[in-house]
Structure formats: structure tokens, C-alpha cells
């Protein structure tokens, strides 16, 4: 069923980063495959922009959530 894997995971900062890293590898591989095809595709730039925009959107809302503030994930205080 679609979305089952995501529904079983707790959405937190670590999951968002891992999904971004996994998606980045996949999307770069697919862009390389697209570049090797005879006819170039015109959707690579909008897809890349939307991918990064979604990543930043998730990052922004996860940094605002109290769960992440309590867990101490992400940046560390120096000094």
C-alpha cells in the first residue's frame, strides 16, 4: 500500500535528512540516465528545484517542532 513505509516511521529530523540524501543519490543517477538519452528532457530543472524546496520546507518545520528542540538533534551549542 502506498505510504505504508512512511506511516510506520516517526517523522523527525533524521528521517527527513536520510530521505533527502537517498533522494539526492537517486535523482542524480536518474539525471545522468536522462542526459544519456537521445532526446534531452526539459523537466530536470523544475524537478531539481522542487526537490530542494521540499527538503528545505521539511527542514524548516522540523526545526520549529518541540520534539527536535528537546531531542537536541541537529546543531550543537559551542562554548
Amino acid at each position, binding site marked *: 500500500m*502506498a*505510504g*505504508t513505509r*512512511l*506511516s*510506520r516511521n*516517526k*517523522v523527525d529530523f533524521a*528521517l*527527513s535528512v536520510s*530521505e*533527502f540524501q537517498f*533522494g539526492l543519490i*537517486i*535523482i542524480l543517477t*536518474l*539525471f545522468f*540516465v*536522462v542526459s544519456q*538519452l537521445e*532526446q*534531452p*528532457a*526539459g*523537466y*530536470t530543472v523544475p*524537478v531539481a528545484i*522542487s*526537490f530542494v524546496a*521540499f*527538503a528545505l*520546507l*521539511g527542514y524548516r*518545520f*522540523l526545526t520549529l*517542532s518541540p*520534539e527536535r528542540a528537546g531531542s537536541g538533534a541537529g546543531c550543537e551549542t559551542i562554548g
Partner: protein
Amino acid sequence: MPWGVTLAIVLSEPIEGLGSFLTELKKKGNKLVILRIGNKWDIRYPGIRSHRISTPHDLLRVVLRGIMNWRRRELIPLAAIIGMELSWLYVLLSIAGRISGWNLLHFFFIRFIFWHSVSGASSTVSNGGKAHPALEHSTLPCYDTTAAETRPLPKFRAYRPGLALRHTEALLLYR
């Protein structure tokens, strides 16, 4: 059954002994939701939410309301993750569609995701299989359904929960 699992029971008719079974599950700490299909019965159990499902849109409304109540705080980050996945899935389906000759983008993004609102044919089919003149030299994936070398679309049936569950009893487990 692990802690925290929500049990949704979809019924077309009441089952004998259902009340004691649900009470036992409730005492064990399970979260229960009853989805009643059709108008044949109207039995309510104390402490257990129940929804009447008459049309597929009722099921969609109940699911959306449950998602909103369940993960209100995680909803936007979850949508962002799904958006990231759909981004690379779009590229993947486009490449697979080019190789196979099937319009997989149309099937996945319209027939699968927007199944509840779309029942007609694609724009390329509705105008006689000819692409719009503006798209003739476009690099966007465009498929001429009249071309001899193009394979026909695979016949997938749109998912209709109202029809599928009218006379059946199903047990859905989700978190």
C-alpha cells in the same frame, strides 16, 4: 498486537459477538475505529468511534480527518518528504515510460493519485490521439497514441473502495 496500532474494522453487516471482541481489544489498549459500510445497521459501541461510509468520498473524508488529528504536527514535514519522493519518482517514471512506451506518468500521477476525481480519458486520447500543436516540438514526455510502434496502455482498474467493500468485510491495520 503492538501498542499504538489503530484498528479500523470495515463491516457491511454486524457480526455476532463483535461487541465483546471490541471491548476486549479496547481493554488491551488498542485504538479502535469502526467504519460502517452502507445503511443496514446503526449499532454504536461505547468509547469507540464509528463512521458511516455511504460513498467513497465519505471514506476519504474520514481518512483525511484522521490524518489531521493523528499527525497534525508532522503533517507538513511528512508532505515535504512525500514531495521529495514524488520528485524523483516523476523522473523515474518518465525514463521508464520512454523505454517501455507506456505513459506511466499519466497512470501514476492521474489514475493512481487522483483516482477519486478523474474518470475520463487523457487529453491525448480525447482529441483523437493527436498532440496539441504547442507540444509537437516540446521536450516534455508526450505520447502519440495513434503511432503504430506505441504499445497500448496496460488496463488498470481504478481503485474504488466503495464498490470493493460493499459486500465484503475487511480488517485494516495501520498506525
